């Protein structure tokens, strides 16, 4: 991941997800979930924000302002899916598999930005303005 402190841009170059799901029922769908979840994570970490003004009016009221990630903002994600710890609570040993793509993205990228800038990140999304403010701090 690279941070450009002079514009506030954050470029995610490589991302890996490791996920133990107990038992994979359909590997193709499983990976599709991780990939899609990762995109959602990128959105929440860098782009998507529900803003309101002081009287409670929504400011991000269209897709021009509420920003969803495009193909250019979501790199390929490396996936490691394991079945090392099947659930003892059902006959198949399956565990939840749909959310692993999303869950850690904010923390991972936030910590990477912290590492790059030497400043603690405690708030998402990391808009360019927030990144520049962190870099200046």
């Amino acid at each position, binding site marked *: 991941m690279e941070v450009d402190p002079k514009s506030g841009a954050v470029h995610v170059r490589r991302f890996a997800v490791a996920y133990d799901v107990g038992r994979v029922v359909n590997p*193709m*769908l499983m*990976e*599709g979930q*991780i*990939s*899609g*979840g*990762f*995109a*959602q994570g990128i959105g929440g970490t860098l782009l998507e924000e529900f803003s309101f003004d002081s009287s409670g009016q929504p400011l991000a009221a*269209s*897709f*021009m302002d509420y920003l*969803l990630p*495009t*193909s*250019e903002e*979501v790199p*390929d*994600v490396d996936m490691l899916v394991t079945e090392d710890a099947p659930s003892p609570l059902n006959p198949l040993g399956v565990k939840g598999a749909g959310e692993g*793509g999303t869950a850690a993205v904010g923390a991972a990228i936030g910590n990477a930005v912290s590492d790059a800038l030497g400043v603690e990140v405690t708030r998402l999304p990391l808009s360019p303005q927030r990144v520049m403010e962190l870099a200046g701090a």
Partner: protein
Amino acid sequence: MRKVAIEINGKLVEGEVEPRLLLADFIRDQAGLTGTHLGCEHGVCGACTVQLDGRPVRSCLMFTVQANGHRIATVEGMAPSAHELHTLQQAFHESHALQCGFCTPGILMTMEAFLRDEPNPTPAAIRSALAGNLCRCTGYQNIVKAVGVAAERMRKEAGSVS
């Protein structure tokens, strides 16, 4: 009201419409082709993408009357027959490049035109050409892969024809 005659997927569709009727709504409601989807109606998501005279455009940003006398291609026109998918569609199916399918017709329309312009694209070029179509399900990874697979197959097909 205005009379229109628009060629859609090779067939002439006639109608009488208010000037404000969006092309997407004409395609869906009057031509009965509901493969073209409306995701935002303000020109951002790309789900409404069709081809106008061979070029991808956002059909939510055109009025039906503007397409009068022009050629429209929608996703329904892609498959060569009822028994066979277009190479792109087949690659999407095999590569799991669609989940809910809402964005897929728009992406197919964009990518079909893109591959005509660039039959041998790099993954980066595919990604860039895809940026005008939003997908919430797939994370784009398998879409880029599918387009690459389709491009290779289409180059082989073209090679074997000539």
